[in-house]
């Protein structure tokens, strides 16, 4: 027996209304696949907003610290040089000249760190297999996934009847 039942829709609004009515019948929705971000869907499904922005901040903070420590070591501690008479006894004296690279390095690490975290969290990496249930969910169709194990109290026919009422173009199992 297959693990999940899917309902396929050809319109985002019909799908969102469908999701609402499925949830009101106490059927749990495992996931929804769509070709583009459907706004407001996260509230219907009760999905928590992502914390990726926080990770970007933390990567940026790390980079900022690293850049300042690095430049302090290179230019003040390890090999101080008289460059155009710029004072370099302490970091704060030479700091104005270090701001551009501190900024660039912060952006570099925040952006790349967040992008890598994003790819890992989404399980999208080179060589990964696609897991969308129907090829048209990346084109113009929207798909609701109902996991059998999550809805053990419901029979197949009950689930199918509820899905049928939401005007899908197709119901299939996989």
């Amino acid at each position, binding site marked *: 027996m297959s693990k999940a039942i899917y309902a396929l829709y050809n319109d*985002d*609004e019909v799908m969102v209304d469908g999701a609402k009515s499925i949830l009101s019948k106490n059927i749990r929705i495992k*996931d*929804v*696949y*769509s*070709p*583009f*971000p*459907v706004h407001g*869907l*996260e509230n219907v*499904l009760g*999905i928590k*907003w*992502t914390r*990726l*922005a926080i990770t*970007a901040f933390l990567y940026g903070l790390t980079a900022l610290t690293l850049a300042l420590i*690095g*430049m302090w070591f*290179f*230019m003040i501690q*390890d*090999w101080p*040089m008289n*460059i155009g008479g710029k004072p370099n006894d302490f970091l704060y004296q*030479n700091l104005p*000249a*270090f701001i*551009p*690279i501190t*900024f*660039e*390095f912060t*952006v*570099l690490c925040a*952006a*790349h760190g*967040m*992008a890598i975290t*994003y*790819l890992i*969290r*989404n*399980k*999208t*990496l*080179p060589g*990964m*297999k*696609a*897991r*969308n249930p129907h*090829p*048209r*969910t*990346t*084109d*113009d169709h929207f798909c609701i996934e109902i996991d059998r194990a999550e809805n053990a109290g419901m029979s197949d026919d009950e689930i199918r009847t509820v899905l049928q009422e939401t005007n899908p173009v197709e119901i299939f199992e996989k």
Partner: protein
Amino acid sequence: MQRESAIREPLILGDKSYHDITEDVCAPVEGKANKYWYIVFSISVMVALWGVGCILYTIGRGIGTWGLNTTVDWAWDITNFVWWVGIGHAGTLISAVLLLFRQKWRMAINRSAEAMTIFAVIMAALFPGIHMGRIWMAYWVFPLPNQFGSLWVNFNSPLLWDVFAISTYFSVSLVFWYIGLIPDFATIRDRAVKPISKMAYSVLSFGWTGNAKAWIRFEEVSLVLAGLATPLVFSVHSIVSMDFATSVIPGWHTTIFPPYFVAGAIFSGFAMVQTLLLIARKVLSLESYITVQHAEYMNIVIVITGSMVGVAYLSELFISWYSGVEYEGYAFMNRATGPYWWAYWSMMTCNVITPQLFWFKKIRRSLIASFVLSIFVNIGMWFERFVIIVTSLHRDYIPSSWSMFHPTFVDIGIFLGTIGIFFTLFLLFSRFFPVLALNELKSILKSSGENYKKQH
């Protein structure tokens, strides 16, 4: 469902459905290229090869093959570098700044503008590389532990800031572009019938599934990357301008440079986007998505930034007189009336005078006029960099060392070659990559599509 005011012109013309958008954007990728594509591609590749030949010649023989002399010791190399970096500013500006401002018209143009950015920055990065003379020592620009005791790079120098700025800008733009491409590659993957293209796009799409949480993360990443890229765009060209502004050469030593260079970069970048997209919309039949309205919006940005550049030129000129610094005053008199007057006045005409025609709505909405004027801007902005660099150098403090710059065939070959490489890359992009952010476009179809707007 979000609705949009009826007075706003639709951004997607015609009776389009979600599926039509997929079909229209995937058509160039799935179909065969036409005759014109092959003709233009062949020419670009030939020009590119000539450029590569000249680059290899430079690397083999040294930069003595260029027309530099002891007075004008920096000329076309840095001119081309700044020109390409400037062009590379529109892509990230369009996708990042316009995303933060929630401008929906960006969606039709951001993908190709970002591609253009990446290719332009590659062309730009080439010049500092080869102008070092010994490119195999290019890694010396990074602070690597070394056997000289360890002697570090100079973090006080704008040239080093440039290394960090350009590499950050390039790699962040690349990541921003690619993250947007992943869902669109998935669309092509799920439609592909031939096994080779199926495999290629499976790898490129990283196994994208498009589930609800993935899209939430996608939106968050796009937003935060846009927030990071926006100050980056401004910082990069400010730093490029500091290569000049922190020196003591009259004509370079100007505090107005950072904002003036940033405005100029946006100006030239939008002009290049305009040039490329007006061709692309015709060749790839994307008239429903890249509309006259889009061209008009870009023309508005061009006329605004062009006027900012114009104000900068005039204030520079005024300050050179008002400051009472005779060297500064001479540098500017020499620019306008000296032996390089023709370069100065080409710059003035192409950057300040002709873009003012865009104040007329008829001209702003005429595609032919937009195309011609965008070429003018491209030429004018190249002359701007040439004027700043060469005219400030060629009349030294000692009249006996005054000289002129004469480009050799290598100078010309490398410059034209980078244009060839740029177009080769762009043409390949237009054949194998989705040129519009097709999945993002679908999200505005119901609010900004012509057929949906008529129903409400």
